[in-house]
């Protein structure tokens, strides 16, 4: 197996008026080509920061990141990013927001228009092509941004809580769709999420991060047959993985059993 991404002792300290904010502490991680990796961790543990450093959009405080044969020093462009917010351009229609990817990259738009329509249909936004973002709900906007990230068929996909703003039903559907797309195209995917079950359902490996400053707490290979179904979540094997991860968060004090100290008193 070829290595797609090598993250080596990467750290990040944000400068701030009251001293630095230590966001990421020595993260090392190798991702194989075509692998689906989920990055799971509590809020504020540095998941987005790590993702942005991989894309070369936020500077590292230390360490190296290599994607393919390229050392990431500036913006790395041979990828698709789904940001934590939909991040659409308000002045463009849905279609033009998706096609922005092609426009900026200077690719011939003709073949991609068809693909854009297919992607929009996949995420259930057929008929919304000429709407503006303000006419869409938050979840619909996020689905547009997923189409934008997939349009140019990038070999590497960075997704920052892409389904966080979606309702449970749409989320389930898109989990399956993402698995389909990934199985068909064999992209390398790094998928950030808060949800233990989403991570276990989708990933080949779940990287569990500790609270801030984030470092890798555990790496858990998920050995469940593909394609996974929503029903997979009810299998004992799935439950065992989820329980193991939940146990870690409890150990780190991210999750507390009911009745323990630290509860909010009314």
């Amino acid at each position, binding site marked *: 197996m070829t290595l797609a991404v090598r993250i080596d002792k990467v750290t990040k300290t944000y400068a701030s008026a009251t001293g630095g904010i230590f966001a990421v502490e020595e993260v090392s991680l190798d991702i194989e080509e075509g692998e689906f990796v989920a990055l799971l961790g509590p809020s504020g543990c540095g998941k987005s920061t790590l993702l942005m450093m991989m894309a070369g959009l936020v500077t590292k405080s230390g360490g190296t990141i290599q994607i393919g044969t390229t050392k990431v020093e500036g*913006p790395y462009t041979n990828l698709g990013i789904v*940001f934590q917010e939909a991040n659409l351009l308000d002045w463009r229609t849905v279609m033009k927001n998706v096609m922005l990817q092609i*426009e*900026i990259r200077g690719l011939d738009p003709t073949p991609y228009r068809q693909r854009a329509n297919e992607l929009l249909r996949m995420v259930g936004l057929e008929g919304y092509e000429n709407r503006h973002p303000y006419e869409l709900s938050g979840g619909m906007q996020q689905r547009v941004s997923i189409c934008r990230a997939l349009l140019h068929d990038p070999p590497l996909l960075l997704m920052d809580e892409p389904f966080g703003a979606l309702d449970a039903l749409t989320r389930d559907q898109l989990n399956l769709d993402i698995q389909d797309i990934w199985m068909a195209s064999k992209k390398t995917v790094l998928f950030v999420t808060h949800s233990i079950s989403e991570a276990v359902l989708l990933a080949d490996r779940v990287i569990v991060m500790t609270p801030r400053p984030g470092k890798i707490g555990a790496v858990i290979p998920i050995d469940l047959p593909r394609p996974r179904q929503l029903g997979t979540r009810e299998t004992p094997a799935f439950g065992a993985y989820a329980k193991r991860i939940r146990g870690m968060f409890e150990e780190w004090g991210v999750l507390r059993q009911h009745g323990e100290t630290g509860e909010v008193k009314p």
Partner: protein
Amino acid sequence: MTAEAVSSTTKGPDATRVRVPDWMYPILALVVVIAIWDIGVRVFDVKAFILPPPWKMMTALFKNWTSLSLAMLYTLMEIMAGFAMSVIVGVGLAIAIVSARILEKTVFPLIVGSQVIPKVAIAPLFVIWFGFGITPKILIAFLISFFPIIISTVIGLRSIDLLKLHLARSMGASPAQVFFRFRLPNAMPAIFGGLKLSITAAVIGAIVGEFIGSDKGIGRILLIANGNLDTDVLFAGILILSIVGVVLFLIIDVIERIVIRWHVSQRLKHGVVL
């Protein structure tokens, strides 16, 4: 009576109330102001050279229509030329300031500082430099009206979401693409805010220029009418000037609605109640 009141409330506001179009409100307000003005002048027996009654202003307007409208046309030219200069120079300078750190540190503070100088005070200097023709008026209109544009454009261009810049860079956008596809459209609402302030300032600027020294224009007519205590003509001139100012403002407002229909400020106009 009571029964009727109850039934009208159950029917809901739309069923019983007559819809007044939005443009009617300022007109109604104006009618009220004119009525109070007219009654006030009569009740307190105000001399016409101090405050002429509304109808005297209107007769003065019709009697002097040719000279007033020609003068207004001339002043309108000054306003438009000064405003056009403001747009070009203001937006241009703002772009330069936002793209070059050195300009931000050198030119920008000077521009801001220059706004503290009262323009009325340096206007006579312009007459010395450029004579009594149209040039000094255009320049004063420009000088007063370019500041709102430069400030709002700088703010608009700067206030782009970091995440949008991340998006641009992750797609390999060139500096020109970042500017034209991201920063400039993002700045349009702020720029339009500046344009609206600027056009009203340009009207004031042109009049100030004509007050300092002029042989044409509505400002000169106002000055002469004032000197002769032709207060009715003075009011007629102010009326024309105000109408032109409002129309100019509305033109920008209409363009704004078309250009940035996607923006929050425009959506609120279309039915969403705060």
